[in-house]
C-alpha cells in the first residue's frame, strides 16, 4: 500500500531540498533589496537615512573610480593584517607554551583573566596617547583584540589534548621543542583556529572604531567623514565594504582551516 504513495511524492519534487534551499538563500536578499528600492522611491521611507540601493550603487561606482574607496580599503587592510599578525602569532606561541608548562600557566593566566574583561574599544584613548595618531595605535589595538581569544583558545586547546598523545611523545623521547611542534601545536590547532575566527571578528570591530576616532584614512574614517558631511550614501558604501571584508575573511579562514587541519573529518 505504501509504495505507490511514496512514488507519487518523489515525482512531485522538482528540485532537491538542497537546491531549493540554495535558491531561497540567493533570492531572499535580492527580494529585500528590491523592496527597499521600491519603498525608498515611493517615499515611504526617509531617503535621507535610507537612500535607495541604486543611489548607493551609484556612489559606490563614483568612489571606486575616483580611487577614494580603494585607498581607504587598502589602508584598513594593511592595519588589519599587521595587527592580526602581531596579535595572533605571539598569542599562539605563548598560549601553546602555557598549555604545556604549568609554571608559565600559573604566572600568566591571572594576568590574562585580569586584562581580558577590559573592553578593547575603551583602550583607544590610551593607545592614542602611547602610540600617537599614526599607524601604530591602530595596529596595536587590532593586535590586542586578536591576542586574547587566540591565547585563551591556544592554551585550552593544548590542555584538551588527550594525555595518551603526550605519553607517546615522552616514550619516543621527543624533546620539548619536538613536543611543541609535533603534538601540542597540531593537537590544539582546531581550537586555535576557532580563536583566530573570534579574533578576526573583534579585529574588524576595533579597526572601525579606531579609524573613526583617531585617523584620517581607512574605512572607519570614511564612514565617520560621511556622517560629518552628511553624505549618507557614502556611509552605506563604507558599511557594505566592511561587511564584505568580514565575509571575505570568513572564506579565507575556511581555506586556512582546510590547509591547517586536513586531518579532521569534513562536516
Amino acid at each position, binding site marked *: 500500500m505504501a509504495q505507490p504513495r511514496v512514488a507519487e511524492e518523489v515525482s512531485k519534487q522538482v528540485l532537491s531540498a538542497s537546491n531549493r534551499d540554495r535558491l531561497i538563500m540567493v533570492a531572499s536578499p535580492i527580494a529585500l533589496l528590491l523592496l527597499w528600492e521600491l519603498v525608498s522611491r515611493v517615499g515611504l521611507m526617509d531617503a535621507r537615512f535610507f537612500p535607495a540601493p541604486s543611489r548607493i550603487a551609484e556612489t559606490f561606482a563614483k568612489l571606486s573610480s575616483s580611487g577614494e574607496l580603494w585607498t581607504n580599503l587598502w589602508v584598513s587592510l594593511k592595519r588589519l593584517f599587521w595587527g592580526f599578525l602581531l596579535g595572533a602569532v605571539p598569542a599562539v606561541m605563548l598560549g601553546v607554551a602555557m598549555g604545556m608548562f604549568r609554571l608559565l600557566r600559573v604566572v600568566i593566566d591571572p594576568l590574562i583573566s585580569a586584562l581580558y574583561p577590559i573592553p578593547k574599544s575603551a583602550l583607544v584613548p590610551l593607545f592614542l596617547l602611547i602610540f600617537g595618531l599614526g599607524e601604530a595605535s591602530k595596529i596595536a589595538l587590532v593586535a590586542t583584540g586578536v591576542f586574547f581569544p587566540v591565547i585563551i583558545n591556544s592554551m585550552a586547546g593544548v590542555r584538551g589534548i588527550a594525555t595518551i*598523545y603526550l*605519553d*607517546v611523545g615522552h616514550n*619516543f*623521547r*621527543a624533546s620539548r621543542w619536538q613536543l611543541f611542534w609535533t603534538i601540542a601545536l597540531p593537537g590544539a590547532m582546531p581550537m586555535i583556529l576557532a580563536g583566530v575566527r573570534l579574533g578576526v571578528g573583534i579585529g574588524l570591530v576595533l579597526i572601525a572604531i579606531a579609524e573613526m576616532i583617531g585617523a584620517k584614512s581607512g574605512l572607519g574614517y570614511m564612514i565617520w567623514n560621511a556622517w560629518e558631511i552628511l553624505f549618507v550614501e557614502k556611509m552605506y558604501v563604507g558599511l557594505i565594504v566592511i561587511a564584505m571584508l568580514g565575509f571575505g575573511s570568513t572564506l579565507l579562514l575556511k581555506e586556512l582551516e582546510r590547509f591547517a587541519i586536513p586531518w579532521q*573529518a569534513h562536516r
Partner: protein
Amino acid sequence: MSDAAPQPAAPKISIEGLSKHFPTKAGRLTAIDNISLAIPEGQFFTIVGPSGCGKTTLLRILAGLETFSAGRLKIAPPVSERPENSMVFQGESIFPWMTVWDNAAYGLKLRHVSAARIKEVVGHFLERTGLTKFADAYPHQLSGGMKQRVSIARAFANDPDIFLMDEPFSALDEQNKTLLQQELLRIWEETRKTVVFITHSVDEAVSLSDRIMVMSAQPGRVKAMIDVPFERPRDVLALRARPEYGQLVFSIWEQLRDEVQRARQLDEQKVHA
C-alpha cells in the same frame, strides 16, 4: 630456553623488589608490591592479571613514564644507537593529525634519521602490517584494527631494543584480534627482540608468549611464573586446536580465578564505600 640453562646471559630487564605506592584520600595505596623478575634478551614475556592489579603501572615504569617507590630496575643498555624501548599503547594512541606514514615514521623523524632510511624502514613495516595502500590516509578514515596496526608499525619502525605492549588488542573484536596476534608474531619473529606484553586474556598470553607471569589482584604481586613450551614460529590458530594448549590455558585460569574474584570483591567494596 629455560632459566636454568647453564651460564645464563645477563638478563635484558631485571627487577628486584619493585614497589609502587600512590597516595590517596583513604591513605597509601600499594599498586605493586615487591615484584622481582628477570627477562632474558629476546623473550616474549607476558603479564596476565585481573584489572587493577598494577600491570599497566609496571609497564609504564619500564617505559620510563612513571616512577617507582622502592626496589631496583635494571635495563641493559642498547648495543647501538637504537632507543631502549617503544610502547604500543592501549586504546587510540596514533596521532589524528598525522597520516599513517607520518605516524609510523614518528620515532625515526624525532631522531633525525636520514630520509632514505626512513623511507626504507617505514615502507617495510607498512608493508608488513598491510597498510601500504593507506600510507596517505588520516586515522579518522581507518577502522579500529587498522589504527592498532599503525600503532604497531610505529613501534617496530622505531627499531627499539625492547617492545612494551599494553593490551594492544583489547578494544578489537575477536576476528581482528586473532588476525593481529598472528601478524604481530610474524613481524616479531623477523627480529625476536625482547617483548613485555600485558593482557587480561589468558588465551592471548598463551598464544603469544615464551613465559607468562600471573599477577595477583591489588596489591600486584607475582602469583606464578609459567613457561610456554610451544615452538616458534607459531601459528596461532593451529596452536589453539592442540590439547596441550587447552590444558595450559586451563591451568593458568585456575591460578587466575581466585585473583579475578578477589579483584571483583575489591571493586564492590569500593562501590559500597
